């Protein structure tokens, strides 16, 4: 037993001595520290969201800022996505003489996967980075400290409201974005065909099931929550220096985008169990 421990210690020492191994060990340590801190940050959010004071006016303000102001970007992207997907898919389906399946196929793609994921990635880019930069800048200019010394709980006022607003707004944006994407698809279908609005949507909703729609909506709540959480975590814990503002914004986008894909992968696995 003692010999095993000695060998283990020697192995760790040898690993630590090599610069590349040292880098890997530090990266692993950093990863676990970040996961641990993010988890504690999330636990604090759940502790504080249920206890007064409730910052309703700030929550509404954030819903407007996060949701309404992101709408044009999500709408334009959704429209282009629906249009392009339809135009790109038509030749393949035409090979098999299955153009009539175009509305249904595009609808399932958009509702189940592309709509939520693309909207979440845009949301991570716009809202996640915005929250990260805003909070980091507040930290650098001592605004968070100023809130604290005035007897206001800055976590409740800044973090809870933003995460809650992001969690609530993304699903709404996805639903609206999906609708606009389907309209884009309708335009795409009619570029080389003649399908009425009524028939197009009859084909779309004829093929969509609850198992397509409900899990897709549910996962967007998780997307929104984690985008808000990561943005707030990176901003709230930024270092004191102007450089940290850019770093926080960048890290928020990168990490949030990665987490969106991870959640999507888990959601697909869970959904496939019910199919």
């Amino acid at each position, binding site marked *: 037993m003692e010999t095993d421990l000695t060998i283990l210690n020697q192995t760790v020492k040898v690993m630590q001595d090599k610069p590349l191994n040292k880098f890997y060990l530090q990266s692993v340590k950093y990863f676990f520290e970040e996961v641990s801190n993010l988890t504690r940050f999330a636990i604090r959010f759940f502790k504080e969201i249920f206890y007064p004071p409730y910052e309703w006016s700030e929550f509404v303000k954030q819903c407007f800022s996060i949701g309404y102001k992101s709408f044009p970007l999500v709408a334009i992207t959704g429209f282009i996505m629906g249009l392009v997907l339809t135009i790109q898919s038509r030749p393949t389906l035409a090979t098999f003489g299955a153009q009539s399946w175009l509305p249904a196929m595009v609808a399932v793609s958009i509702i189940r996967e592309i709509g939520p994921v693309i909207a979440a990635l845009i949301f991570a880019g716009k809202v996640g980075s915005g929250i990260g930069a805003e909070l980091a800048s507040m930290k650098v*200019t*001592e*605004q968070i*400290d100023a809130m*604290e010394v*005035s*007897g*206001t*709980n800055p976590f409740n006022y800044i973090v809870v409201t933003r995460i809650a607003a992001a969690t609530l707004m993304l699903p709404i944006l996805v639903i609206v974005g999906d609708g606009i994407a389907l309209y884009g698809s309708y335009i795409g279908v009619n570029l080389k065909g003649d399908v009425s609005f009524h028939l197009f949507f009859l084909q779309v909703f004829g093929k969509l099931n609850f198992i397509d729609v409900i899990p897709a909506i549910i996962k967007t709540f998780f997307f929104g929550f984690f985008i808000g959480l990561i943005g707030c975590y990176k901003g709230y814990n930024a270092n004191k220096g102007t450089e940290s503002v850019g770093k926080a914004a960048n890290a928020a986008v990168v990490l949030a985008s990665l987490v969106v894909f991870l959640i999507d992968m888990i959601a697909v696995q869970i959904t496939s169990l019910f199919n």
Partner: protein
Amino acid sequence: MENIVVEIEHLKKSFGSHQVLNDISLKLEKGKNLVVLGKSGSGKSVLIKCLMGLLLPDDGKIILLGKNVADLKEKELNVLRKKVGFLFQSAALYDSMTVRENLEFPLRDKKEMTKEEKEVLVKEALENVGLENVIDEMPSALSGGMRKRIGLARTLILKPEIILYDEPTTGLDPITSKEISQLILGIQKKYNTAAIIITHDIECAKITANTMLIIKDGTAIIEGTYQEISTSKDEWVHSFFE
């Protein structure tokens, strides 16, 4: 000693291996201004951040308005903080809010107050700092001196018993610095507030100080009135007055 509003005993604080505060003790009487003077990086700002509970000290005792800060729960600390104003070095105005919203922010919890009553307080605070005309401006539209004044107005709105000033004149021209120093003195006289003024500006100290404390490398080396300290034989202390 009923007159003592702040009492710090043997305060120590380090960041990693760097000892920032090393056995600091001080007392502040009601209605008096205490100027803490020292070189940049000597631990002055850390001292008042420990006082407000923004940083946890490693050792020592802080009694603020008769309460031991270390023993307070978060809610109790927040109640105590409302009785203590803090003017940050950068003024720390909320840059997404107008001047009016900045000043109304500390009044958010006062549910019993009407909007009109809050408006009266906001205007009174702005009058105190001579900036009634910028009430609807955004902080980004204000000069450095104006931001400091608005920060001071926000601090005054809750009528605190103690005000902590963190480098109130740093980054300002000599004329504006003098105006801010006189404003600090005026507030002391008008509201009978006690204040700890962290600075390395000797002119500000001269105008505002009832007593002074000089910190060197996290240790208090001399305490007394401006007159006593300015005639000190210590070469390092004397260098502040040259």
